[in-house]
């Protein structure tokens, strides 16, 4: 490892330019591109350094596939295998879920919400709370999160409406099921965290065993130390759980070469008002440990590290811009 690596970082390419490059990439291979299109594409490439760099990436992408030289189809099958496909018992599962929902009266909750009012426990932005459910299960709620629960003779249901929770289940003969927008997680004596994002749920299992059941997809078992992100249709490949355990319990966010936009989105969850970043800096990468409890300190750390400045307009509007 040479100690004198150059510090010059390649300037990020704006997302709009990458989008244009992607559009050309798709169009040129469609078989519909005319001679005039090709000329326009060449003009586009010649128009700026950024365009040229974006197109070089597109070429590098095509070269990667050429390198596979997949005459036997082996590579294709490997990559296809790697992507789980939705289960065949889709219809059956949907019915089962619907039946379960009816039986437990979940439909009551389908009524259009002021979402926090229906929740049995909710935290506001920047708040974290520990609570104990009726069966003795212990729950930590992250910022801006809400859960309902409903225990009957056969089951313990917990619904994560939004945000993130960590649960340590109490011993009880009734199974405990956590429901999210995308599916259910059935626990067997465990400690795990669940997060509800806009289009997916994510579960990290720290102890015990559990089963993840997407609404329309094939279920899968997780063991301690594993993590899965799932949508309604499928479970992504299972990965090791984030082993810091839930660092958010300690009010910390650890970033490892994360795009700035992702760090900012995370900090935004802990901050009142709007926090955003300009497209020009969204792709800058950053590493470090940031304080969720003190997002101003985290913003200062970002400004010291990256070529950005923090713009504040009033107390509730903050934007990170190029310096």
């Amino acid at each position: 490892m040479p100690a004198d690596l150059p510090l010059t970082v390649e300037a990020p390419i704006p997302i709009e330019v990458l989008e244009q490059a992607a559009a050309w990439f798709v169009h040129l291979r469609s078989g519909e591109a005319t001679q005039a299109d090709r000329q326009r594409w060449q003009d586009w490439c010649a128009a700026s350094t950024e365009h040229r760099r974006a197109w070089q990436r597109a070429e590098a992408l095509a070269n990667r596939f050429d390198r596979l030289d997949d005459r036997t189809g082996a590579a294709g099958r490997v990559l296809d295998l790697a992507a789980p496909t939705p289960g065949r018992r889709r219809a059956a599962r949907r019915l089962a879920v619907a039946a379960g929902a009816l039986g437990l009266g979940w439909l009551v909750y389908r009524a259009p919400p002021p979402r926090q009012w229906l929740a049995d426990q909710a935290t506001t932005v920047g708040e974290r709370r520990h609570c104990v459910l009726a069966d003795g299960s212990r729950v930590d709620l992250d910022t801006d999160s809400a859960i309902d629960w409903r225990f009957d003779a056969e089951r313990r249901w917990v619904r994560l409406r939004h945000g993130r929770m960590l649960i340590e289940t109490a011993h009880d003969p009734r199974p405990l099921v956590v429901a999210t927008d995308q599916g259910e997680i059935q626990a067997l004596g465990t400690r795990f965290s669940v997060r509800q994002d806009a289009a997916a749920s994510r579960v990290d299992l720290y102890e015990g065993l559990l089963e993840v059941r997407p609404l329309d997809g094939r279920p899968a078992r997780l063991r301690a130390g594993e993590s899965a992100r799932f949508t309604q249709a499928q479970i992504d490949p299972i990965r090791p759980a984030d082993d810091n355990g839930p660092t958010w319990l300690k009010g910390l966010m650890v970033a490892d070469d994360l795009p700035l936009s992702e760090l900012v989105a995370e900090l935004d969850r802990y901050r009142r008002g709007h926090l955003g970043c300009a497209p020009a800096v969204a792709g800058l990468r950053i590493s470090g440990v940031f304080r969720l409890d003190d997002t101003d300190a985290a913003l200062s750390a970002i400004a010291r590290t990256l070529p950005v400045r923090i713009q504040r307009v009033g107390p509730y509007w903050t934007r990170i811009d190029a310096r």
Partner: protein
Amino acid sequence: MELELSSLPIEPDGAARTAAGPGFTALYRDHHRWLQAWLRRRLGCGVDAADLAQDTFVRVLARRDVAQIHEPRAYLTTVAHGVLVNHLRRRDLERAYLLELAQTPPALQPDVETRAIVIETLCEIDAMLAGLPPKVRAAFLFAQLEGLSYADIATRLKVSTSSVKQYLHKATLQCLQTCH
């Protein structure tokens, strides 16, 4: 929670950056054995753990934009976690590929060097496509690997040609964003 800034192994202004400064040396000295043990518990293999611990520190060293490290072990485990995920994923892809090769006639089997390149490339492509919806991923692979026309892809996936174009645009954009 107030954390000891004086104990920062990497200077908060990012001065440690790529040079193996005193901050990095201290980080390595204080936590290397601990990290290796941490990895061994997860892998059940001492040799791999030693390699991955090394990879982790190399990654830490290569991070240019390290803002601040309040808790070095939390940071190290996060970096190591990324290394571990890649390692396990690579192992799965490699196994799957070798299984495929085992069913290929010997005449068509690539030599060892080509295999290594293919496995490396498979890992890169897999990482670029991570998180894409199944149909988007499939459309992109049909186009790139099998060279299917957009109309054929549409038929296979039972969607319209304009959906195929949208899928391809989405997948291409993600690849352009993640490949360097």
